[in-house]
Protein backbone atom coordinates (compact mmCIF):
# COMPACT_ATOMS: atom_id res chain seq x y z
CA UNK A 1 0.00 0.00 0.00
CA UNK A 2 2.76 2.39 0.98
CA UNK A 3 4.50 1.44 -2.21
CA UNK A 4 1.55 2.47 -4.34
CA UNK A 5 1.05 5.76 -2.57
CA UNK A 6 4.72 6.60 -2.79
CA UNK A 7 4.78 5.77 -6.46
CA UNK A 8 1.63 7.80 -6.99
CA UNK A 9 3.20 10.78 -5.31
CA UNK A 10 6.40 10.38 -7.28
CA UNK A 11 4.50 10.02 -10.51
CA UNK A 12 2.35 13.06 -9.91
CA UNK A 13 5.24 15.26 -8.85
CA UNK A 14 7.26 14.18 -11.87
CA UNK A 15 4.17 14.75 -13.95
CA UNK A 16 4.11 18.34 -12.76
CA UNK A 17 7.62 18.82 -14.08
CA UNK A 18 6.54 17.40 -17.40
CA UNK A 19 3.58 19.73 -17.34
CA UNK A 20 5.87 22.73 -16.91
CA UNK A 21 7.89 21.67 -19.93
CA UNK A 22 4.97 20.64 -22.08
CA UNK A 23 3.09 23.85 -21.28
CA UNK A 24 6.05 25.93 -22.45
CA UNK A 25 6.48 23.81 -25.56
CA UNK A 26 2.78 24.08 -26.36
CA UNK A 27 2.57 27.81 -25.76
CA UNK A 28 5.51 28.44 -28.06
CA UNK A 29 4.20 26.11 -30.71
CA UNK A 30 0.67 27.41 -30.46
CA UNK A 31 1.64 31.00 -31.17
CA UNK A 32 4.67 30.67 -33.38
CA UNK A 33 4.50 27.15 -34.80
CA UNK A 34 8.02 26.62 -33.51
CA UNK A 35 8.84 23.19 -32.17
CA UNK A 36 11.62 24.05 -29.76
CA UNK A 37 14.01 21.12 -29.72
CA UNK A 38 16.20 23.00 -27.27
CA UNK A 39 13.45 22.98 -24.65
CA UNK A 40 15.08 20.15 -22.75
CA UNK A 41 18.28 22.15 -22.79
CA UNK A 42 16.51 25.02 -21.04
CA UNK A 43 15.50 22.55 -18.35
CA UNK A 44 19.06 21.31 -17.97
CA UNK A 45 20.69 24.71 -18.04
CA UNK A 46 18.24 26.08 -15.48
CA UNK A 47 19.13 23.22 -13.18
CA UNK A 48 22.88 23.60 -13.65
CA UNK A 49 22.84 27.36 -13.12
CA UNK A 50 20.70 26.82 -10.05
CA UNK A 51 23.19 24.27 -8.84
CA UNK A 52 26.09 26.70 -9.06
CA UNK A 53 24.16 29.50 -7.38
CA UNK A 54 23.08 27.24 -4.54
CA UNK A 55 26.72 26.20 -4.00
CA UNK A 56 27.68 29.83 -3.52
CA UNK A 57 24.67 31.22 -1.73
CA UNK A 58 23.07 28.24 0.01
CA UNK A 59 19.74 29.67 -1.08
CA UNK A 60 17.28 27.71 -3.15
CA UNK A 61 15.36 30.88 -3.86
CA UNK A 62 18.37 32.66 -5.34
CA UNK A 63 19.10 29.55 -7.35
CA UNK A 64 15.60 29.50 -8.73
CA UNK A 65 15.71 33.17 -9.62
CA UNK A 66 19.12 32.95 -11.24
CA UNK A 67 18.37 29.75 -13.15
CA UNK A 68 15.13 30.99 -14.58
CA UNK A 69 16.51 34.43 -15.35
CA UNK A 70 19.52 33.16 -17.26
CA UNK A 71 17.49 30.72 -19.32
CA UNK A 72 14.71 33.20 -20.02
CA UNK A 73 17.24 35.66 -21.39
CA UNK A 74 18.83 32.92 -23.46
CA UNK A 75 15.44 31.95 -24.83
CA UNK A 76 14.64 35.51 -25.77
CA UNK A 77 17.97 35.92 -27.53
CA UNK A 78 17.45 32.68 -29.43
CA UNK A 79 14.04 33.78 -30.59
CA UNK A 80 14.99 37.33 -31.50
CA UNK A 81 18.18 36.65 -33.37
CA UNK A 82 17.76 33.19 -34.81
CA UNK A 83 14.33 31.66 -34.88
CA UNK A 84 12.64 34.84 -36.03
CA UNK A 85 14.33 34.50 -39.42
CA UNK A 86 12.33 31.44 -40.36
CA UNK A 87 8.73 32.19 -39.56
CA UNK A 88 6.54 29.10 -39.71
CA UNK A 89 9.19 26.99 -41.42
CA UNK A 90 9.35 23.76 -39.49
CA UNK A 91 12.58 22.29 -40.77
CA UNK A 92 14.94 25.30 -40.45
CA UNK A 93 13.60 25.95 -36.97
CA UNK A 94 14.06 22.32 -36.04
CA UNK A 95 17.63 22.46 -37.30
CA UNK A 96 18.43 25.67 -35.45
CA UNK A 97 17.01 24.49 -32.17
CA UNK A 98 18.76 21.16 -32.69
CA UNK A 99 22.00 23.02 -33.13
CA UNK A 100 21.45 24.88 -29.89
CA UNK A 101 20.58 21.64 -28.19
CA UNK A 102 24.02 20.29 -28.99
CA UNK A 103 25.82 23.50 -28.18
CA UNK A 104 24.19 23.83 -24.79
CA UNK A 105 24.59 20.15 -23.98
CA UNK A 106 28.30 20.23 -24.70
CA UNK A 107 28.76 23.55 -22.96
CA UNK A 108 27.11 22.13 -19.87
CA UNK A 109 29.33 19.07 -20.03
CA UNK A 110 32.38 21.26 -20.32
CA UNK A 111 31.47 23.62 -17.49
CA UNK A 112 29.87 21.27 -14.99
CA UNK A 113 31.43 17.94 -15.90
CA UNK A 114 29.90 14.57 -16.52
CA UNK A 115 29.05 13.45 -13.02
CA UNK A 116 25.40 13.25 -12.06
CA UNK A 117 24.53 15.78 -9.40
CA UNK A 118 21.49 16.81 -7.42
CA UNK A 119 20.23 20.15 -6.36
CA UNK A 120 19.88 20.32 -2.61
CA UNK A 121 16.32 20.71 -1.39
CA UNK A 122 15.34 23.96 0.25
CA UNK A 123 15.77 23.60 4.00
CA UNK A 124 12.13 24.16 4.79
CA UNK A 125 11.14 21.09 2.75
CA UNK A 126 13.90 18.80 3.87
CA UNK A 127 11.65 16.91 6.24
CA UNK A 128 8.84 14.53 5.51
CA UNK A 129 5.27 14.66 6.60
CA UNK A 130 3.57 11.71 8.27
CA UNK A 131 -0.05 10.99 7.48
CA UNK A 132 -1.12 7.93 9.38
CA UNK A 133 1.80 5.60 8.82
CA UNK A 134 2.62 6.85 5.34
CA UNK A 135 5.54 9.13 4.72
CA UNK A 136 5.26 12.00 2.27
CA UNK A 137 8.45 13.82 1.39
CA UNK A 138 7.27 17.39 1.76
CA UNK A 139 9.38 18.53 -1.15
CA UNK A 140 7.42 16.38 -3.55
CA UNK A 141 4.22 17.89 -2.22
CA UNK A 142 5.73 21.31 -2.78
CA UNK A 143 6.47 20.44 -6.39
CA UNK A 144 2.90 19.33 -6.91
CA UNK A 145 1.64 22.53 -5.33
CA UNK A 146 3.85 24.64 -7.56
CA UNK A 147 2.67 22.72 -10.59
CA UNK A 148 -0.97 23.29 -9.75
CA UNK A 149 -0.40 26.97 -9.00
CA UNK A 150 1.46 27.48 -12.26
CA UNK A 151 -1.25 25.59 -14.08
CA UNK A 152 -3.96 27.77 -12.62
CA UNK A 153 -1.88 30.85 -13.34
CA UNK A 154 -1.41 29.89 -16.96
CA UNK A 155 -5.08 29.05 -17.30
CA UNK A 156 -6.02 32.45 -15.90
CA UNK A 157 -3.51 34.08 -18.22
CA UNK A 158 -4.91 32.31 -21.23
CA UNK A 159 -8.59 32.72 -20.53
CA UNK A 160 -8.89 35.73 -18.29
CA UNK A 161 -6.40 38.34 -19.38
CA UNK A 162 -5.87 40.57 -22.35
CA UNK A 163 -2.49 39.02 -22.87
CA UNK A 164 -4.09 35.62 -23.06
CA UNK A 165 -6.67 36.88 -25.47
CA UNK A 166 -3.92 38.29 -27.65
CA UNK A 167 -2.13 34.96 -27.58
CA UNK A 168 -5.27 33.11 -28.52
CA UNK A 169 -5.94 35.62 -31.28
CA UNK A 170 -2.43 35.26 -32.54
CA UNK A 171 -2.81 31.51 -32.57
CA UNK A 172 -6.04 31.58 -34.51
CA UNK A 173 -5.19 34.19 -37.07
CA UNK A 174 -1.98 36.14 -36.97
CA UNK A 175 -2.90 38.57 -39.74
CA UNK A 176 -6.14 39.52 -38.07
CA UNK A 177 -4.39 39.87 -34.74
CA UNK A 178 -1.88 42.25 -36.29
CA UNK A 179 -4.73 44.09 -37.90
CA UNK A 180 -6.34 44.73 -34.55
CA UNK A 181 -3.18 46.22 -33.18
CA UNK A 182 -1.61 43.29 -31.42
CA UNK A 183 2.15 43.57 -31.46
CA UNK A 184 2.72 40.03 -32.59
CA UNK A 185 6.46 40.45 -32.65
CA UNK A 186 6.68 41.51 -29.00
CA UNK A 187 4.14 38.90 -28.07
CA UNK A 188 6.18 36.16 -29.71
CA UNK A 189 9.29 37.13 -27.80
CA UNK A 190 7.34 37.31 -24.55
CA UNK A 191 5.75 33.92 -25.06
CA UNK A 192 9.04 32.32 -25.99
CA UNK A 193 10.58 33.80 -22.88
CA UNK A 194 7.71 32.47 -20.80
CA UNK A 195 8.20 29.01 -22.26
CA UNK A 196 11.89 29.12 -21.46
CA UNK A 197 11.10 30.31 -17.96
CA UNK A 198 8.76 27.39 -17.37
CA UNK A 199 11.33 24.90 -18.61
CA UNK A 200 14.04 26.34 -16.37
CA UNK A 201 11.64 26.31 -13.44
CA UNK A 202 11.03 22.67 -14.16
CA UNK A 203 14.75 22.04 -14.14
CA UNK A 204 15.23 23.68 -10.78
CA UNK A 205 12.19 22.08 -9.20
CA UNK A 206 13.28 18.72 -10.54
CA UNK A 207 16.90 19.17 -9.54
CA UNK A 208 16.49 17.63 -6.07
CA UNK A 209 14.81 14.41 -7.10
CA UNK A 210 15.42 13.86 -10.81
CA UNK A 211 18.98 15.03 -10.62
CA UNK A 212 21.14 17.03 -12.99
CA UNK A 213 23.28 15.10 -15.46
CA UNK A 214 24.32 15.02 -19.10
CA UNK A 215 21.54 13.49 -21.08
CA UNK A 216 18.77 14.78 -18.82
CA UNK A 217 17.99 17.28 -21.56
CA UNK A 218 17.30 14.55 -24.13
CA UNK A 219 15.35 12.44 -21.69
CA UNK A 220 13.06 15.19 -20.52
CA UNK A 221 12.60 16.48 -24.07
CA UNK A 222 11.50 13.08 -25.22
CA UNK A 223 9.01 12.78 -22.37
CA UNK A 224 7.74 16.30 -23.06
CA UNK A 225 7.18 15.27 -26.66
CA UNK A 226 5.23 12.22 -25.56
CA UNK A 227 3.14 14.48 -23.34
CA UNK A 228 2.23 16.82 -26.18
CA UNK A 229 1.63 13.95 -28.55
CA UNK A 230 -0.82 12.43 -26.10
CA UNK A 231 -2.26 15.67 -24.78
CA UNK A 232 -2.24 17.64 -27.98
CA UNK A 233 0.18 20.29 -29.10
CA UNK A 234 -1.04 23.77 -28.31
CA UNK A 235 -3.34 22.72 -25.48
CA UNK A 236 -2.76 23.70 -21.87
CA UNK A 237 -5.22 21.09 -20.63
CA UNK A 238 -3.42 18.52 -22.75
CA UNK A 239 -0.10 19.49 -21.23
CA UNK A 240 -1.50 19.14 -17.72
CA UNK A 241 -3.34 15.87 -18.05
CA UNK A 242 -0.82 14.48 -20.47
CA UNK A 243 1.93 15.39 -18.06
CA UNK A 244 0.19 13.62 -15.22
CA UNK A 245 -0.42 10.55 -17.31
CA UNK A 246 3.11 10.28 -18.62
CA UNK A 247 4.58 11.05 -15.20
CA UNK A 248 2.58 8.25 -13.63
CA UNK A 249 3.28 5.83 -16.47
CA UNK A 250 6.97 6.56 -16.39
CA UNK A 251 7.18 6.11 -12.66
CA UNK A 252 5.10 2.96 -12.42
CA UNK A 253 6.82 1.62 -15.48
CA UNK A 254 10.27 2.08 -14.00
CA UNK A 255 9.17 0.68 -10.67
CA UNK A 256 7.35 -2.38 -11.97
CA UNK A 257 9.03 -3.23 -15.28
CA UNK A 258 12.48 -1.65 -15.22
CA UNK A 259 13.76 -3.51 -18.26
CA UNK A 260 10.89 -2.36 -20.43
CA UNK A 261 11.83 1.27 -19.89
CA UNK A 262 10.17 3.38 -22.56
CA UNK A 263 7.64 0.74 -23.50
CA UNK A 264 5.07 1.82 -20.95
CA UNK A 265 5.09 5.21 -22.56
CA UNK A 266 5.29 3.96 -26.10
CA UNK A 267 2.07 1.99 -25.90
CA UNK A 268 -0.29 4.86 -25.00
CA UNK A 269 1.52 7.09 -27.46
CA UNK A 270 0.96 4.54 -30.21
CA UNK A 271 -2.69 4.17 -29.26
CA UNK A 272 -3.27 7.91 -29.38
CA UNK A 273 -1.55 8.10 -32.75
CA UNK A 274 -3.71 5.34 -34.09
CA UNK A 275 -6.95 6.72 -32.75
CA UNK A 276 -6.56 10.49 -32.44
CA UNK A 277 -3.38 11.76 -34.08
CA UNK A 278 -3.83 15.32 -32.88
CA UNK A 279 -3.84 14.24 -29.25
CA UNK A 280 -6.57 14.18 -26.64
CA UNK A 281 -7.16 17.92 -26.49
CA UNK A 282 -5.29 19.09 -29.55
CA UNK A 283 -6.78 21.19 -32.27
CA UNK A 284 -3.74 22.21 -34.25
Amino acid at each position, binding site marked *: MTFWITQLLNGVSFGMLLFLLAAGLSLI*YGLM*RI*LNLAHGSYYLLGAYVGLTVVRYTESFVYAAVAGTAVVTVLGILMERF*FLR*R*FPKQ*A*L*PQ*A*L*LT*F*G*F*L*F*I*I*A*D*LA*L*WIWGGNPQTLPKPQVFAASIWVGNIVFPSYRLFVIAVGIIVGLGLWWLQEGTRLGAMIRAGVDDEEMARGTGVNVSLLSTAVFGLGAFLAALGGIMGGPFVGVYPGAD*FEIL*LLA*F*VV*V*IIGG*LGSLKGAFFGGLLVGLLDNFGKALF*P*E*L*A*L*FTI*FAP*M*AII*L*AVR*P*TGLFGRL
Partner: protein
Amino acid sequence: MKTRILAIALAAAILLIVPTVLSAYQLSLLVKMLIFAIFAMSLDLILGFAGLPSLGHAAYFGAAAYTVSLLALRVVNNFWIDFPAGLLMAVGVSALFGLLALRTHESYFLMITLALAQVLWGIAFGWRSLTGGDDGLPGVPRPNLGLPWSLADRIPFYYFVLIFFALALVLLWIIAHSPFGRVLVGIRENEVRMKVLGYNVWLYKYVAFILAGLFAGLAGNLFAYYNGFVSPSYLSVLFSASGLLMVILGGAGTLFGPALGAGVIVYLENVISVYTERWLMILGVIYVLVTLFAPRGLVGLLRERFGSRLA
Protein backbone atom coordinates in the same frame (compact mmCIF):
# COMPACT_ATOMS: atom_id res chain seq x y z
CA MET B 1 25.15 17.04 -69.31
CA LYS B 2 28.55 16.06 -70.59
CA THR B 3 30.18 17.83 -67.66
CA ARG B 4 28.12 15.75 -65.30
CA ILE B 5 28.99 12.44 -66.93
CA LEU B 6 32.63 13.39 -66.95
CA ALA B 7 32.51 14.28 -63.28
CA ILE B 8 30.87 10.99 -62.39
CA ALA B 9 33.32 8.98 -64.46
CA LEU B 10 36.20 10.78 -62.79
CA ALA B 11 34.79 10.15 -59.32
CA ALA B 12 34.23 6.51 -60.12
CA ALA B 13 37.78 6.14 -61.41
CA ILE B 14 39.17 7.76 -58.29
CA LEU B 15 37.14 5.55 -56.01
CA LEU B 16 38.34 2.45 -57.86
CA ILE B 17 42.02 3.28 -57.79
CA VAL B 18 42.26 4.96 -54.44
CA PRO B 19 43.06 1.90 -52.22
CA THR B 20 46.47 1.77 -53.76
CA VAL B 21 47.43 5.22 -52.54
CA LEU B 22 45.73 5.57 -49.21
CA SER B 23 47.03 4.44 -45.85
CA ALA B 24 45.12 1.88 -43.80
CA TYR B 25 43.67 4.60 -41.62
CA GLN B 26 42.64 6.77 -44.54
CA LEU B 27 41.04 3.86 -46.32
CA SER B 28 39.12 2.96 -43.21
CA LEU B 29 37.86 6.52 -43.02
CA LEU B 30 36.76 6.38 -46.63
CA VAL B 31 34.83 3.19 -45.98
CA LYS B 32 33.05 4.92 -43.12
CA MET B 33 32.26 7.83 -45.43
CA LEU B 34 30.76 5.51 -48.02
CA ILE B 35 28.60 3.74 -45.44
CA PHE B 36 27.34 6.98 -43.96
CA ALA B 37 26.77 8.29 -47.47
CA ILE B 38 24.30 5.47 -48.02
CA PHE B 39 22.62 6.42 -44.74
CA ALA B 40 22.43 10.08 -45.71
CA MET B 41 21.12 9.32 -49.20
CA SER B 42 18.40 7.11 -47.76
CA LEU B 43 17.30 9.98 -45.52
CA ASP B 44 17.38 12.34 -48.48
CA LEU B 45 14.71 10.26 -50.17
CA ILE B 46 12.16 11.10 -47.52
CA LEU B 47 13.53 14.40 -46.30
CA GLY B 48 14.84 16.02 -49.45
CA PHE B 49 12.45 14.56 -51.99
CA ALA B 50 9.23 13.90 -50.11
CA GLY B 51 9.74 16.65 -47.57
CA LEU B 52 9.19 14.43 -44.54
CA PRO B 53 11.28 15.75 -41.63
CA SER B 54 12.27 12.50 -39.97
CA LEU B 55 14.35 12.92 -36.84
CA GLY B 56 14.56 9.23 -36.06
CA HIS B 57 16.26 7.73 -39.07
CA ALA B 58 18.88 6.07 -36.88
CA ALA B 59 16.19 3.58 -35.88
CA TYR B 60 16.44 1.60 -39.11
CA PHE B 61 20.22 1.85 -39.30
CA GLY B 62 20.59 0.63 -35.75
CA ALA B 63 17.92 -2.04 -36.02
CA ALA B 64 19.75 -3.61 -38.95
CA ALA B 65 23.16 -3.24 -37.32
CA TYR B 66 21.97 -4.94 -34.14
CA THR B 67 20.22 -7.71 -36.07
CA VAL B 68 23.30 -8.56 -38.09
CA SER B 69 25.50 -8.40 -35.01
CA LEU B 70 23.25 -10.51 -32.82
CA LEU B 71 22.81 -13.16 -35.48
CA ALA B 72 26.47 -13.29 -36.37
CA LEU B 73 27.56 -13.46 -32.74
CA ARG B 74 24.88 -15.61 -31.17
CA VAL B 75 23.08 -17.61 -33.83
CA VAL B 76 24.99 -18.27 -37.01
CA ASN B 77 27.68 -16.34 -38.79
CA ASN B 78 26.32 -16.74 -42.27
CA PHE B 79 26.23 -13.71 -44.54
CA TRP B 80 23.37 -15.10 -46.60
CA ILE B 81 21.18 -15.31 -43.50
CA ASP B 82 22.40 -12.40 -41.43
CA PHE B 83 22.49 -9.76 -44.14
CA PRO B 84 18.95 -10.23 -45.47
CA ALA B 85 17.72 -10.53 -41.89
CA GLY B 86 19.17 -7.12 -41.11
CA LEU B 87 17.48 -5.62 -44.15
CA LEU B 88 14.22 -7.31 -43.25
CA MET B 89 14.37 -5.93 -39.73
CA ALA B 90 14.95 -2.40 -41.05
CA VAL B 91 12.01 -2.78 -43.42
CA GLY B 92 9.82 -4.19 -40.65
CA VAL B 93 10.61 -1.39 -38.24
CA SER B 94 10.10 1.30 -40.86
CA ALA B 95 6.83 -0.30 -41.94
CA LEU B 96 5.62 -0.22 -38.34
CA PHE B 97 6.91 3.24 -37.49
CA GLY B 98 5.66 4.58 -40.80
CA LEU B 99 2.13 3.50 -40.01
CA LEU B 100 2.22 5.51 -36.81
CA ALA B 101 4.23 8.52 -37.89
CA LEU B 102 2.47 9.13 -41.20
CA ARG B 103 -0.79 9.78 -39.42
CA THR B 104 0.73 13.13 -38.58
CA HIS B 105 2.31 16.11 -40.26
CA GLU B 106 5.14 18.55 -39.82
CA SER B 107 5.90 19.13 -36.16
CA TYR B 108 4.01 16.13 -34.88
CA PHE B 109 5.85 14.01 -37.42
CA LEU B 110 9.15 15.44 -36.19
CA MET B 111 8.34 14.58 -32.60
CA ILE B 112 6.99 11.15 -33.29
CA THR B 113 9.87 9.97 -35.44
CA LEU B 114 12.19 11.15 -32.70
CA ALA B 115 10.18 9.44 -29.97
CA LEU B 116 9.89 6.16 -31.86
CA ALA B 117 13.61 6.00 -32.47
CA GLN B 118 14.18 6.72 -28.80
CA VAL B 119 12.00 3.74 -27.90
CA LEU B 120 14.39 1.52 -29.83
CA TRP B 121 17.31 3.23 -28.19
CA GLY B 122 15.71 2.57 -24.82
CA ILE B 123 15.34 -1.12 -25.63
CA ALA B 124 18.96 -1.39 -26.76
CA PHE B 125 20.11 0.46 -23.68
CA GLY B 126 17.87 -1.28 -21.16
CA TRP B 127 17.70 -4.89 -22.32
CA ARG B 128 21.21 -5.76 -21.25
CA SER B 129 20.81 -9.49 -21.53
CA LEU B 130 19.98 -9.19 -25.20
CA THR B 131 21.92 -6.20 -26.42
CA GLY B 132 24.66 -5.78 -23.89
CA GLY B 133 23.14 -2.47 -22.92
CA ASP B 134 25.47 0.46 -22.87
CA ASP B 135 28.46 -1.83 -23.40
CA GLY B 136 27.17 -2.88 -26.77
CA LEU B 137 28.08 -5.93 -28.80
CA PRO B 138 31.75 -6.29 -29.60
CA GLY B 139 33.52 -8.75 -31.83
CA VAL B 140 31.18 -8.80 -34.80
CA PRO B 141 33.04 -10.82 -37.44
CA ARG B 142 33.43 -9.88 -41.07
CA PRO B 143 31.28 -11.96 -43.36
CA ASN B 144 32.74 -14.98 -45.09
CA LEU B 145 31.61 -15.00 -48.69
CA GLY B 146 33.70 -17.94 -49.76
CA LEU B 147 35.77 -15.71 -52.01
CA PRO B 148 39.53 -16.02 -52.49
CA TRP B 149 39.93 -12.66 -50.69
CA SER B 150 39.06 -12.39 -47.03
CA LEU B 151 36.85 -9.49 -46.06
CA ALA B 152 38.86 -9.17 -42.91
CA ASP B 153 41.51 -7.57 -45.12
CA ARG B 154 40.97 -3.90 -45.64
CA ILE B 155 41.17 -3.67 -49.42
CA PRO B 156 38.70 -6.43 -50.24
CA PHE B 157 36.36 -4.99 -47.62
CA TYR B 158 36.69 -1.57 -49.22
CA TYR B 159 35.55 -2.92 -52.58
CA PHE B 160 32.79 -4.88 -50.85
CA VAL B 161 31.40 -1.64 -49.40
CA LEU B 162 32.07 0.26 -52.63
CA ILE B 163 29.92 -2.14 -54.60
CA PHE B 164 27.02 -1.64 -52.21
CA PHE B 165 27.54 2.10 -52.29
CA ALA B 166 27.41 2.14 -56.07
CA LEU B 167 24.34 -0.09 -56.01
CA ALA B 168 22.58 2.13 -53.49
CA LEU B 169 23.48 5.26 -55.40
CA VAL B 170 22.18 3.91 -58.69
CA LEU B 171 18.98 2.47 -57.24
CA LEU B 172 18.19 5.58 -55.23
CA TRP B 173 18.91 7.74 -58.25
CA ILE B 174 16.49 5.73 -60.38
CA ILE B 175 13.82 5.84 -57.70
CA ALA B 176 14.25 9.57 -57.20
CA HIS B 177 13.97 10.25 -60.94
CA SER B 178 11.18 7.79 -61.63
CA PRO B 179 7.54 8.83 -61.94
CA PHE B 180 7.23 7.75 -58.29
CA GLY B 181 10.06 10.06 -57.34
CA ARG B 182 8.44 12.95 -59.17
CA VAL B 183 5.31 12.40 -57.14
CA LEU B 184 7.35 12.65 -53.94
CA VAL B 185 8.65 16.03 -55.03
CA GLY B 186 5.11 17.15 -55.82
CA ILE B 187 4.02 16.06 -52.36
CA ARG B 188 6.79 18.12 -50.85
CA GLU B 189 5.77 21.18 -52.84
CA ASN B 190 2.04 21.02 -52.28
CA GLU B 191 0.48 17.96 -50.71
CA VAL B 192 -3.16 19.00 -50.98
CA ARG B 193 -2.77 19.81 -54.64
CA MET B 194 -1.39 16.36 -55.26
CA LYS B 195 -4.41 14.81 -53.58
CA VAL B 196 -6.73 16.93 -55.68
CA LEU B 197 -4.87 15.76 -58.77
CA GLY B 198 -5.74 12.21 -57.79
CA TYR B 199 -2.61 10.90 -56.10
CA ASN B 200 -2.92 8.59 -53.10
CA VAL B 201 -0.47 10.69 -51.15
CA TRP B 202 -0.34 8.51 -48.04
CA LEU B 203 0.61 5.45 -50.02
CA TYR B 204 3.47 7.23 -51.77
CA LYS B 205 4.80 8.55 -48.48
CA TYR B 206 4.55 5.13 -46.89
CA VAL B 207 6.40 3.35 -49.66
CA ALA B 208 9.06 6.05 -49.65
CA PHE B 209 9.39 5.70 -45.89
CA ILE B 210 9.95 1.97 -46.16
CA LEU B 211 12.42 2.33 -49.02
CA ALA B 212 14.36 4.86 -46.97
CA GLY B 213 14.32 2.41 -44.08
CA LEU B 214 15.61 -0.36 -46.36
CA PHE B 215 18.61 1.64 -47.51
CA ALA B 216 19.30 2.90 -44.00
CA GLY B 217 19.28 -0.75 -43.00
CA LEU B 218 21.76 -1.53 -45.75
CA ALA B 219 24.06 1.09 -44.28
CA GLY B 220 23.51 -0.38 -40.83
CA ASN B 221 24.40 -3.86 -42.02
CA LEU B 222 27.62 -2.67 -43.57
CA PHE B 223 28.46 -0.63 -40.52
CA ALA B 224 28.14 -3.61 -38.20
CA TYR B 225 30.68 -5.46 -40.31
CA TYR B 226 32.90 -2.42 -40.67
CA ASN B 227 32.97 -1.42 -37.04
CA GLY B 228 32.85 -4.90 -35.54
CA PHE B 229 30.97 -3.30 -32.68
CA VAL B 230 27.45 -1.92 -32.18
CA SER B 231 26.16 0.16 -29.33
CA PRO B 232 23.01 2.15 -28.57
CA SER B 233 24.69 5.32 -29.77
CA TYR B 234 23.85 4.24 -33.33
CA LEU B 235 20.18 4.40 -32.43
CA SER B 236 20.53 7.74 -30.72
CA VAL B 237 19.14 11.17 -31.46
CA LEU B 238 22.69 12.34 -32.00
CA PHE B 239 23.16 9.89 -34.80
CA SER B 240 19.84 10.75 -36.42
CA ALA B 241 20.79 14.39 -36.11
CA SER B 242 24.16 13.77 -37.73
CA GLY B 243 22.39 12.13 -40.63
CA LEU B 244 20.08 15.09 -40.89
CA LEU B 245 23.01 17.47 -40.95
CA MET B 246 24.74 15.43 -43.65
CA VAL B 247 21.66 15.83 -45.83
CA ILE B 248 21.21 19.54 -45.20
CA LEU B 249 24.91 20.34 -45.40
CA GLY B 250 25.24 18.48 -48.68
CA GLY B 251 22.02 19.74 -50.16
CA ALA B 252 18.64 18.16 -49.61
CA GLY B 253 16.95 16.62 -52.60
CA THR B 254 20.07 16.06 -54.66
CA LEU B 255 21.32 12.62 -53.55
CA PHE B 256 24.90 13.52 -54.45
CA GLY B 257 24.76 16.35 -51.94
CA PRO B 258 24.00 14.17 -48.94
CA ALA B 259 26.67 11.70 -50.01
CA LEU B 260 29.11 14.57 -50.09
CA GLY B 261 27.75 15.88 -46.81
CA ALA B 262 28.39 12.51 -45.21
CA GLY B 263 31.98 12.61 -46.37
CA VAL B 264 32.46 16.10 -44.99
CA ILE B 265 30.94 15.33 -41.60
CA VAL B 266 32.86 12.08 -41.16
CA TYR B 267 36.07 13.83 -42.14
CA LEU B 268 35.45 16.81 -39.86
CA GLU B 269 34.56 14.62 -36.93
CA ASN B 270 37.75 12.66 -37.34
CA VAL B 271 39.98 15.66 -37.72
CA ILE B 272 38.39 17.78 -35.04
CA SER B 273 38.23 15.00 -32.48
CA VAL B 274 42.02 14.90 -32.53
CA TYR B 275 42.27 18.45 -31.22
CA THR B 276 39.28 18.79 -28.96
CA GLU B 277 36.56 16.91 -27.15
CA ARG B 278 34.06 19.55 -28.09
CA TRP B 279 32.86 17.85 -31.28
CA LEU B 280 29.23 18.03 -30.14
CA MET B 281 29.40 21.77 -29.73
CA ILE B 282 31.06 22.22 -33.09
CA LEU B 283 28.41 20.03 -34.66
CA GLY B 284 25.79 22.31 -33.14
CA VAL B 285 27.54 25.38 -34.47
CA ILE B 286 27.73 23.84 -37.95
CA TYR B 287 24.01 23.18 -37.71
CA VAL B 288 23.29 26.80 -36.92
CA LEU B 289 25.69 28.16 -39.56
CA VAL B 290 24.41 25.90 -42.32
CA THR B 291 20.80 26.76 -41.55
CA LEU B 292 21.52 30.48 -41.51
CA PHE B 293 23.91 30.78 -44.43
CA ALA B 294 23.69 27.72 -46.65
CA PRO B 295 20.20 26.29 -46.44
CA ARG B 296 20.55 24.66 -49.85
CA GLY B 297 23.76 23.02 -48.76
CA LEU B 298 27.06 22.61 -50.54
CA VAL B 299 25.43 21.52 -53.77
CA GLY B 300 23.27 24.62 -53.60
CA LEU B 301 26.35 26.79 -53.19
CA LEU B 302 28.10 25.04 -56.05
CA ARG B 303 25.10 25.56 -58.27
CA GLU B 304 25.05 29.24 -57.49
CA ARG B 305 28.71 29.55 -58.33
CA PHE B 306 28.95 27.36 -61.39
CA GLY B 307 25.43 27.08 -62.68
CA SER B 308 23.36 23.89 -62.81
CA ARG B 309 25.59 22.15 -65.34
CA LEU B 310 27.77 20.66 -62.69
CA ALA B 311 25.14 19.40 -60.29
